[in-house]
């Protein structure tokens, strides 16, 4: 495990256990090809994701963060994804103002049956992040 | 009497920098209760291992490097010195990290700090130990020390309690002491529990029932703050004077050497002037901030 080469860019995904996490699982079991750049944290709902988590991930050096939940109207807890949407909307705008590239904060709706979509989302984000510099935001020297 | 103001013992600096820890290896881990572990350790440095000495009641600062540092008393006795011990409950960042460690893991240790128990003062006295929960750890160091020098002390009474039978720490010690005819031990738990035939009730209440004589006696108290707060009035009722009551206190500490500021009770710093105090020393402040 230690010898595994570091994948660039590194993405941290917060995936809702009811949909996107299952979607990612499906992408795996149905052998959909997608870049192995994403590391996943399963969350009970996209509404659980405090913007603090996103910022912490950037602080830890992840190049991008994906928050993924159920499609609007499908939240297991009725409104969690709507709340996530508001939070992520302001987080993305605000971080851009502070000086963070918008590509680093990503949000998607992926249902449990959308294995293909999950693979596409990861591929697209990976491509976008390859187009910008690696995350050196929190390095001491430029 | 007053407990000595500063550690008169030897100082073991990793260099001339008091804040640098020594490296030590965990040699054994005992699960005392769910959430409480005793760690046996030895210094990596051969020379230090031989030379290190401390007094019962002193503490050290233990590091999990990268996580942080926390103070615990040295719970083993100076009279039994092939290794050192400390015990800790899993309650915060550093203790969680300690509890994740296994035998062979490397930790940082600096110390010993604090004053320790006033052995000279205790000589020739009846010793009454009053402990609660993990508060037995510092008392245990002194109890073993007293047992190993049994001739120096008169009666030894131990009143020790915990929430439930499962929360009693150092059961192996309790068993040994129970068999020792030269000491008298009373264990208690807070509430009735199946299979428990001993006493039931909070430590201060049991202390009042046992009612040890104050004559030529010193009470040595350690436990959670709430237990300590309720124990002093009982001892006073039993005729103990402020100079006959000794406690070892726990406060949040960082530096361990009286500088970082947070562990004070009035003008006294628990790390520097304590952790062992007589009630006489702290009575002005104890009801309010401890």
């Amino acid at each position, binding site marked *: 495990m230690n010898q595994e080469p570091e994948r660039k860019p590194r993405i941290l995904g917060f995936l809702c256990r009811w949909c996107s996490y299952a979607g990612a699982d499906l992408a795996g079991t149905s052998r959909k090809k997608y870049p192995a750049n994403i590391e996943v944290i399963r969350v009970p709902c996209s509404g659980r994701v405090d913007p603090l988590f996103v910022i912490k991930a950037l602080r830890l050096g992840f190049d991008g963060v994906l928050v993924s939940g159920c499609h609007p109207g499908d939240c297991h807890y009725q409104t969690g994804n709507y709340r996530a949407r508001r939070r992520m909307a302001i987080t993305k705008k605000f971080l851009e103002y502070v000086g963070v590239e918008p590509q680093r904060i990503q949000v998607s709706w992926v249902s449990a049956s959308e294995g293909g979509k999950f693979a596409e989302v990861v591929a697209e984000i990976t491509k976008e992040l390859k187009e910008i510099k690696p995350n050196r935001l929190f390095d001491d020297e430029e | 009497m007053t407990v000595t103001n*500063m550690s008169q013992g030897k*100082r073991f600096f*990793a*260099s*001339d*920098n*008091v*804040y*640098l*820890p020594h*490296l030590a290896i965990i040699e054994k881990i005992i699960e005392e209760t769910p959430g409480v572990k005793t760690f046996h350790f030895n210094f*990596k440095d051969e020379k230090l291992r031989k030379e290190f000495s401390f007094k019962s009641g002193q503490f050290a600062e233990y*590091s999990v*490097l*990268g*996580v*942080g*540092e926390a103070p615990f008393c040295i719970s083993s006795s100076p009279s039994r010195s092939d290794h050192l011990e400390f015990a800790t409950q899993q*309650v*915060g960042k550093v203790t969680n990290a300690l509890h994740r460690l296994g035998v062979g893991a*490397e930790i*940082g240790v600096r110390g010993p700090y604090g004053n320790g128990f006033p052995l000279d003062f205790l000589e020739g006295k009846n010793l009454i130990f009053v402990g609660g929960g993990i508060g037995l750890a510092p008392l245990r160091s002194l109890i073993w020390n007293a047992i190993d020098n049994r001739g120096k002390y008169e009666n030894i009474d131990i009143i020790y309690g915990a929430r439930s039978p499962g929360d009693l720490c150092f059961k192996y010690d309790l068993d040994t002491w129970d068999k020792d005819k030269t000491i008298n031990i009373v264990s208690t738990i807070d509430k009735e529990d199946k299979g428990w035939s001993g006493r039931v009730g909070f430590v201060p209440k049991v202390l009042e029932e046992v009612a040890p004589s104050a004559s030529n006696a010193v009470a040595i108290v350690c436990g*959670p*703050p709430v237990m300590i707060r309720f124990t002093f009035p009982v001892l006073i009722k039993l005729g103990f004077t402020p100079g006959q009551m000794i406690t070892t206190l*726990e*406060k*949040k500490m*960082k*530096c361990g*050497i*009286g*500088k*970082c*500021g*947070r*562990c*004070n009770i*009035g*003008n006294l710093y628990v790390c*520097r002037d304590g952790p062992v105090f007589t009630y006489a020393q702290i009575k*002005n*402040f104890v*009801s*309010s*901030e*401890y």
Partner: protein
Amino acid sequence: MSTSKKINKKDIGKILSQWNQEFTVLVPSKEGDVSKMARWDGKDTGFMDSHRNTVQPVKTNFFPPMEEMFSFQKDKEGYHIEPVSPGEHKLLIFAIRPCDANALAILDVAFKDGYEDPYYLSRRKGTVLIGLGCTNPYDSCFCTSMGSSPSDSTNVDIMLTDIGDEFLIEEITETGKEMIARTEELEEAKKADEAKAKQVKEASYNKVTRKIDTKDIDKKLLACFENKDYWEEVSAKCISCGICTFLCPTCYCFDINDDSFKKQGARFRSWDSCAFPVYTRMPMENPREEKWRRVRQKVCHKFEFFPMNFGSIACVGCGRCIRLCPVNWDITQAIESVPEIT
């Protein structure tokens, strides 16, 4: 014959340049509009025009907001600890105000007591303090109530007094005497200059109008330690931020924390404050969760506990805590309102 010297204010750069050969010279400077003592650029002496006192006290130069204590690495053999030494710069602090110099004397005691603090003391070692008497104290200053004055030279090596176009220069310590002896460009002061300096000092003393009475304050505080009503009233408007303690020239509380990434990391110390609930919070209890207990700790530490331990009040009357407080919490009002012993 007079022993003091003088120098024209215009020529101050000339003596700083000489001192700069031997010392790291710190002068009142601004960083992002916040004043502090910082390295002299070797040229500019304009800083003298607006210097009343720095927002950041001089303690910052010896006990910085954060510092690395040691670093560590882990390899096959285990951990390796690499101590960080603050270096052997000999500092010269120019135009330090008497209150800040007195504050350093208080910190010296705290950091030397018992176990010596190597970080503070190694920076402090060999420091030369060039004091500058105040001629324009703030309305928040109360040094004259703390046994000091705007021209107090007790804890400096050399004392300067603004006598108009010139500074009168007085040697205070042996170090100061030697330095003056080997400093070129200084003129002999005349009797008239010394007379002027005396006038200036008296006038400055009278400009400090904020007064408190600290007689028996330790006893009064001990007597009202349990007076919750008093402390609740006094602390009511405090918002528990760290400004008054962080920017106090004598507050020295600190925190110690590790940072690590993968197999290496470092231990840092940083300022901490008795105003924060988390400062004393333990997993199970916090002896000072309530605000009034924290305010009491701050006041008592300075005016009761520190005097009990070290014989002097840990406040120099610089007034920063009053000037910078977001809600104008005023320690002089607190001290004045401590109940008399009944």
